[in-house]
């Protein structure tokens, strides 16, 4: 399987980051960066990265199942991750979460039929002082309300 030149450059830099003989250290970053490009950690991704690092498929599977951001199937184009942990909960994150589910007609770790949106209820994302907070892919949105979420979804839906 082939990756984009940008991703290859990133991999190359990663592999130079660790002490000699410690290339396995690049495993988790490689999986996550590959997922960002491919959409998921597919069996092909596992095989390719395993081949490059000399790590068995089984060992990689073991690692994937540990990390919550690594996925076997693609998320939506806009992956909305709503924090419902304590600071966000105190300011209405559970209501925000339910609103999002109703609005998109999907639940936790589900994808809309058109592949545009997916939802995930997540633990603290480091935005507690600007709660309630959510991430769309890697972009932070602070001080959310159901109305702001509606507007956000509309703006994401528009073809760019």
């Amino acid at each position, binding site marked *: 399987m082939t990756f984009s030149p940008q991703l290859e450059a990133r991999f190359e830099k990663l592999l130079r980051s660790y002490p000699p003989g410690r290339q396995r250290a690049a495993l988790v970053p490689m999986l996550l960066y590959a997922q960002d490009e491919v959409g998921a950690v597919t069996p092909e991704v596992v095989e390719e990265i395993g081949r490059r690092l000399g*790590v068995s498929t089984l060992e990689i599977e073991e*690692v994937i199942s*540990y*990390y919550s951001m690594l996925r076997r199937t693609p998320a939506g184009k806009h992956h909305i991750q709503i924090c419902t*942990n*304590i600071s966000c909960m105190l300011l209405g994150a559970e209501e925000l979460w339910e609103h999002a589910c109703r609005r998109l007609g999907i639940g936790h770790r589900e994808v809309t039929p058109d592949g545009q949106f997916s939802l995930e209820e997540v633990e*603290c994302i*480091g935005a*507690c*002082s600007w709660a309630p907070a959510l991430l769309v892919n890697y972009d932070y949105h602070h001080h959310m309300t159901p109305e702001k979420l509606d507007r956000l979804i509309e703006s994401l839906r528009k073809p760019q």
Partner: protein
Amino acid sequence: MLYNEPSPLEVRLLTRRFGLPNSASIETYLATEGYVAFRKALQMSPEQIIEEVKISNLRGRGGAGFPTGLKWSFVPRQSPKPKFVVVNADEGEPGTCKDRVLMENDPHQLLEGMLIAGLAVGAHTGYIYIRGEYRYLIEIMDRAIEEAYQHGYLGKNILGSGFDFDVYTHTGAGSYECGEESALLESLEGKRGIPRIRPPFPAVVGAFQCPTVLNNVETFCAIPAIIRDGGAAFAALGTPKNGGTRLFAISGHVNRPGVYELPMGFNLLRMIHEVAGGIRNGKKLKAVIPGGTSCPVLKAEECDIPMDFDSLARAKSMLGSGGVIVMDEDTCMVKVALRIMKFYAHESCGWCVPCREGTLWLKKLLTRFHEGQGRRSEIDLIGGLARNMLGRTFCPLGDAAAMPTISLVEKFYEEFEAHLDGKPCPYEIKTAVRV
């Protein structure tokens, strides 16, 4: 970028560059005493650097508050193995969002702190372990690293001193447990984040089985100021044995939540009322979790307290990561206990039975309780189960789950009683909504 207005009560030492134009750039950094401390450290012996850090009374900002100078002194002087500097930028403790602003607004301050640590222990390589969700910060740090190489502050023979130092960022991929130092080191090696048995501590056997200095982002960020202005000046800002300032992340039911840099020992009530603008909607204060969800809760009447490690320990709580979670009178404390346990059950790595089974059992019990299906005998069972986890796990995640739970049951017993016999939650199923 700043996400909240600063407060006039702040003492801005680590955040002094926040708000300057291009505060993250090396030009701004160099124009504002950037890398001055590193130049000074190049003229000092490793012992002198460590001594200065000891004098500063700097204690780890990651949670446990261990004296930083002492930690550095545990790294063996003579070692046939290479040594490493590792930054814990996993920032996963609920209620905590301070490392994020430090890296976003002043990435070079962190790099300078790492360089000085490298000089102090004789390390030539540093890793910044950044949680996966903080992707934009990896980009900011990578840019800063590149600038530092271009300006000769990283690489070989830095400033002609003969000292070499390289820094790399490393992304996590979603795991609170990877913030625990030994799990972080496992994760850095490309494995599941399962904690290691200690001793040996990372100072002796750390990254890649080599001696390692591992500290929180904020801890490293305090180092340049300490070396530049002297450890004594830093110590003088705080209280005895609690040097310097601290970035407090205030969240919850206050008018002006935000991250504020305040001297160690700043009074908690003043923090809530004067810095954060008091409780929203004119409500009354009910409780505060003073340092992230791993810390025992304080009732309103316990909040007239100096925010430093020792004062909070005396009050049987902890300063932890500096995440101050403020709850008003309409907050259901059973719900709070449940949400906290749901988090720990989700994040338990599964390695130790008391933590894996205990958090899950408590989550189920608290869920049922909050739905009004609790039985009287089970109130004590909640506290008992939590107590049985204390000190019986490889890493402190089990304690982190148990401590707030024990305190919530003890201090808000009547709220647990109010959920018995099918009674609906007096605060309604959810905590008050005030969006």
